[in-house]
């Protein structure tokens, strides 16, 4: 999946933050906080082709069913689309 904006993922005092860099600092004047799964998804975004691949990858690491994971992944990706990040 194509990430359209530039961010640096950082961990500060146990919190995971996406810090805008490059011209992203103009359009998105602030940082985004992620939970652990959000950060996992973020890291795999450039390598995956679609939503289902993210679900399948997460299934390997988390004790949950695809039906349980799918809505959370969709909602996370929707938020990124709203912010024009992907």
């Amino acid at each position, binding site marked *: 999946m194509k990430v359209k904006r530039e961010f640096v993922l950082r961990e*500060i*005092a146990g919190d995971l933050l996406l810090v805008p860099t490059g011209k992203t600092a103009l359009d998105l*004047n602030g940082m985004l906080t992620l939970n652990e799964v959000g950060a996992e998804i973020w890291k795999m975004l450039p390598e995956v082709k679609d939503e289902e691949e993210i679900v399948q990858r997460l299934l390997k690491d988390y004790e949950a069913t695809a039906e349980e994971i799918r809505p959370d992944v969709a909602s996370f990706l929707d938020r990124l689309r709203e912010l024009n990040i992907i």
Partner: protein
Amino acid sequence: MEPRLSKYLHMKGSQLGLPIAGTFELTPRCNFNCKMCYVHLTEKEQKLCGRELTTEQWLSIGREAKETGTVFLLLTGGEPTLRPDFPELLHQFKNMGMMVTVNSNGMLPGEGLLQQIINDPPVRINISLYGTSNETYEKQCGIPAYDRVIRNIRALRDAGIEVKVNMSVTPDNKDDIRSVYETAKELNVHTQSTPYMFPPVRLHPEMCGKNFRMDPEDAGKLQAEYDAFRCSEEEFLRRVRALQNLTSPDAGNEDCGDAIGEGIHCRAGSTSFWITWDGKMTPCGQMAEPAVNVLETGFAEAWRQTRANAAAIRLPPECNSCDIKNICHACAAMCYCETGSFSGRPDYVCRMKRSYIDAMMQYWQTKYGGEV
């Protein structure tokens, strides 16, 4: 108002001892020559006093700061854009994952710098706007720079970059306080103005308690006049009521984050640090001490020592029982710069604040004539 995430990170950083926010004072050199400045040196003076850090030294300190937990970074000077490597430093610090803000006088020397900043912008640029005419600039800064500064502010705004206008008010530009406010409003940029000028003790220890500034009573009155023209009737009344209740009408200084206590009560040395142009870490840029040489100790150790040094600072005991302690916001740096000691009461600040409170009450009576 400070974003919630920033407040949260500072709160967590304070518990864990992390340097969440820092300032890199890239140079003491400046293309302006303001009488009240606490840091400005000419190139000749700077070379006699010490050596500015190299690009690689700043980048190395930046990397260490990032590894130790720094998220918010302010680049300041002197005039930081005078360094030829300024765009490179800004770019690299951003790429490290820090939210970078820049302090500038807005001249942005040379032809390409403005465009370079627009192409690779900081989160915000704080620009000192000293007046609204070349004549005021000539008087205040020794250079008729208004036209260029205002053109640059417009260009930055047009490019979508967040600009904040700060006005340092002195006897030379006090008559422009209203027009600066109006100009900032027209440009749709946030503005902050203060007549409080820290004595430049870092440059001249003998200037302790002194600066080129208004007398404290006039400074307080001017601050009230500023509130009177910028606030709606409702907001003005809210401020008057807060003052009557001996509480602060402001949320606190967003750059420092104040609270009241007998130890140091801002973020200096708790979650924030300052590194001077010659590589010394202090809790705050107004303090010449306690200072730790970052190049000798490394960043993490300098931060550890700075925290310990700041925690040992005790403020004037009489301020703790003062009736206006919640309004005053007198900080450790004010005590130090006004009296030479962290535990000395900064009388200039007391007089300025009391004058401000009186003038606010008087404005309320004469302007609105109502009960509070």
